[in-house]
């Protein structure tokens, strides 16, 4: 048993941090915060140039093993780097690589790997939520292709991306997981409408509408009716991005606040309750990091973290919510000052964490979905 990170991995972490210092200047960070964007073209291309976007389907041998991929994602998340469109693109790339036609692979994969092609996810819908198989958006065959009608919810980057990845119903009589097909749809097609959705954390996402949108058959990814199965197959090794870096950022902000004298001259860290509550947050960070490290270690050892991946996602995100709540309460009234206000405590990072935390237990599988998986695969409980 060895909890140490090896020197080579640490060297890679240093390399990623140097990359971030070069490609994520403070003004870019500020602009991203104000606009709520989660993508930056230059940053994405710089990632692509390093070979840090392409997973195993890339032009070269997979450059990043699970340990390095985890370090990269953790550092990007910690720095709040704009890589969401990059990560959704890489995910769709995996699906295309697994079940797309040769032409589609040749057309789309190199651009994803270089950071030049961006793809938004059009999976869930207003009436679907976590129950993604409740898809109602339809594609009907027409001469030379398909016509798509429906709407998709939370298509983050849908206003900026080149394509949207759509899960649609191609068999109108089908139910649930059957009769679904996946497509890649250029977002500049007539009939596509993107409407901004503003969120409590300031991030911008979208609802996208599709009215008689025509796409040629070459944009179809899966076999007709095989969309769900091929999606699950392609993503079975895909685990959610690490969330513990967000908790680390929150704790660092709170510790910075606690170490500085307040207006009355006293140092919060001298108060026993402050010390205990910070230590408790630090303990939960330690656990979140360990659960994430275990998932990565299992992947690197060729094991499938069936319950362990959900455990990591569940714990980390619930810990962010719990500690954002507790640490804003600890800071007191001053924690109310917003990140955009010049008087904000530690740059408003604690206030922002409280807003940001709320989404984390919902997207990428709600806590309830994660608990269902854990109950089934770890606790041996029957499915409902």
């Amino acid at each position, binding site marked *: *048993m*060895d*909890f*140490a*990170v*090896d020197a080579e991995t640490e060297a890679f972490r240093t390399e990623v941090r140097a990359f971030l210092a070069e490609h994520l200047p403070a003004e870019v960070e500020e602009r991203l915060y104000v606009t709520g964007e989660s993508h930056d073209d230059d940053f994405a291309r710089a990632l692509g140039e390093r070979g840090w976007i392409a997973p195993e389907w890339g032009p070269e041998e997979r450059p990043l093993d699970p*340990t390095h991929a985890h370090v990269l994602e953790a550092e990007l998340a910690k720095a709040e780097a704009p890589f969401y469109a990059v990560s959704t693109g890489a995910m769709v790339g995996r699906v295309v690589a697994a079940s797309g036609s040769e032409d589609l692979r040749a057309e789309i994969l190199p651009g994803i790997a270089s950071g030049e092609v961006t793809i938004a996810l059009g999976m869930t819908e207003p009436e679907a939520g976590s129950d993604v198989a409740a898809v109602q958006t339809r594609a009907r065959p027409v001469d030379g292709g398909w016509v798509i009608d429906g709407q998709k919810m939370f298509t983050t980057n849908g206003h900026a991306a080149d394509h949207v990845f759509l899960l649609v119903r191609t068999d109108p009589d089908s139910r649930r997981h059957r009769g679904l097909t996946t497509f890649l749809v250029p977002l500049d097609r007539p009939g596509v409408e993107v409407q901004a959705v503003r969120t409590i954390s300031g991030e911008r996402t979208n609802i996208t509408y599709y009215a008689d949108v025509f796409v040629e058959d070459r944009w179809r990814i899966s076999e007709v009716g095989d969309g769900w199965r091929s999606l699950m197959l392609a993503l079975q090794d895909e685990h959610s991005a690490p969330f513990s870096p967000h908790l680390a950022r929150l704790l660092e902000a709170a510790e910075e606040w606690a170490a500085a004298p307040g207006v009355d001259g006293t140092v919060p*860290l*001298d108060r*026993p309750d402050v*010390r*205990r*509550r*910070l*230590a*408790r947050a*630090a*303990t*939960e960070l*330690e*656990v*979140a990091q*360990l*659960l994430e*490290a*275990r998932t990565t*270690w299992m992947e690197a*050892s060729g094991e499938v973290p069936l*319950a*362990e991946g959900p*455990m990591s996602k*569940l*714990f980390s995100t619930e810990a962010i919510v719990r500690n954002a709540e507790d640490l804003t309460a600890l800071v007191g009234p001053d924690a109310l000052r917003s990140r955009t206000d010049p008087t904000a405590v530690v740059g408003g990072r604690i206030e922002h964490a409280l807003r940001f935390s709320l989404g984390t237990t919902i997207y990428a599988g709600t806590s*309830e979905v*994660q*608990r*269902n998986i*854990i*109950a089934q695969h*770890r*606790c*041996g*409980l*029957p*499915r*409902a």
Partner: protein
Amino acid sequence: MDLGLSDEQHQLVDSFTNLLAKASTPEHVRAAEPGGVDQALWRTLRETGAVTMGVAEAHGGWGATLVDLALVAERLGRAVAPAPVIEAQVAARLLAAIASPAALDALGPVLAGERLVTLAVRPPQGGMAALTPAGAVCDAVIVLDGDRLLLVPVSDRTRRPVANLAAAPLADIDLSPSAIEGAAATELAAGVEAVDRFEAALDEWLTLTAAALVGIGSAALDLGCAYAAERTAFGAPIGTFQGVSHPLADDATHLDGARLLAQKAAWSLDRDDARGRELAAMAFAFASRTAEAATYDAIHVHGGYGFMLEYDVQLHHRRARGWARVWGDAEAADARAADARYAGARHTTTGAR
């Protein structure tokens, strides 16, 4: 990073699992109440080397790491074993670490299985080492008396066994010279060294107890899950109800985290890592909260049956609290973790609040 066990560690875990499956069944655990020690089990454990293994080879032990001991502690917790293994291990390691002639004199009979030396995990107050773990069955206790670390003989005249929630072998031990009379206390260390030695031993006790709490919680979770999978109500196994399954999923998650953290703390102390003390306190705090929640949920899932003494899960519920709180609660450990983390610390705590 390697989170797997070595072949030797797998064998170690297997051998204790097998031993405890025979000698520490729920029937044994019940029969050992309220005194808290099954003498046959304790003898078997000592003969297996449960105490000796933890001492350095240079001092006659087997040189097991704290990680090894944490693996054993988890098995002891799972079986809620009525034997004072952790206290005996920590006290023996403390004597070996001091390695003065007096300490080694005391260590000899411990390794020979002739004497049981325990550790008062909280410094005594008013000449009394209250609720000393293994105090009801020990021959001597190591106490931090101000800035002196003393080895004090214990007899039935100086101790009062205390009936307690966990049916653990606890006793209030009178340390006053008049009580000890002729049997003089031995000074093992003084000044800064005494405090440092005590705190280092406490780090080990907190870490091993954290591992034991993970075992207690895991066994309770298994009982709760097995019951929830089989018991039906309203026409379905109750495990299909999310109100039942979701707390169990949370407990499973927290127990995995608590196990990793206890093992990391042990690994860290083995390496004299700068974060060892902080991680040990964190491990105790997290394992303590987790074991409390897991054993509560496991009882609750059983419905009224969980409240019956006949069901095993209550054995775990009481020990999840009792084994930990002889030192202090999770918040006391939070404070200790903070003192280590924010060192330079104007606030230092020794023992519980």
